[in-house]
């Protein structure tokens, strides 16, 4: 699967993109967040307050309970501020 991070999440995590297989036991966006937080302090800092994080699965906004399949593109970013 492909993971993307934008804005300050990218800065805290230290990369904008990662590719790896869907971890075992990770079936939802929420479970993926929990799994990522075990990977290092940058992830913990970026994903510590989920009230300021939004998620997209395959380029559509998604909630924490959205199911995941291997090959999905999952993005993490702050609330949008364009326009």
């Amino acid at each position, binding site marked *: 699967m492909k993971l993307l991070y*934008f*804005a*300050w999440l990218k800065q805290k995590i230290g990369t904008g993109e990662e590719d790896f297989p869907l971890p075992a036991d990770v079936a939802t966006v929420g479970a993926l967040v929990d799994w990522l937080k075990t990977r290092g302090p940058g992830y913990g800092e970026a994903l510590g307050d989920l009230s300021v994080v939004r998620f997209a699965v395959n380029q*559509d906004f998604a909630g924490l309970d959205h199911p995941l399949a291997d090959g999905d593109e999952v*993005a993490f970013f*702050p609330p*949008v*501020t*364009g*326009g």
Partner: protein
Amino acid sequence: MIRVQREDFDVGAEMAAMSGNNIGALASFTGLVRGSDGDADIGAMTLEHYPGMTEKKLAEIEAEARERWPLEDCLVIHRYGRLEPGERIVLVITASSHRQAALESCAFLIDWLKTSAPFWKLEERGADGEEWVEARSSDDQAAEKWAATKK
């Protein structure tokens, strides 16, 4: 039509290029980089976006506007990259036979893309360094107003 681009755009030329058999009303909105925010001076800003999802979301928003109002034509341009104060960021133009359809759909498009198009602004605030702009709840409210009036 939607366009996501680094380059500037020419509002007059884009307006002249709107095509339709019976355009009686053209509404436009142009967003520019402001030079200050309250008391704080703003320098340049950098607009980051999510390539792919941005285009997808803008196309969905445009399709929604065309479904809700009888539009002859419709254009959304959103820039990304580094922009100085005074530079244009975003352009919405709507063309219709009738005034209210053009005005309302233009307001709808800009309200909605503020909350649904994946762009993030990083402001250069002089001695204070760089700062990511936080989303405003007033933007959510503006977009929710349209959700409430959905036909």
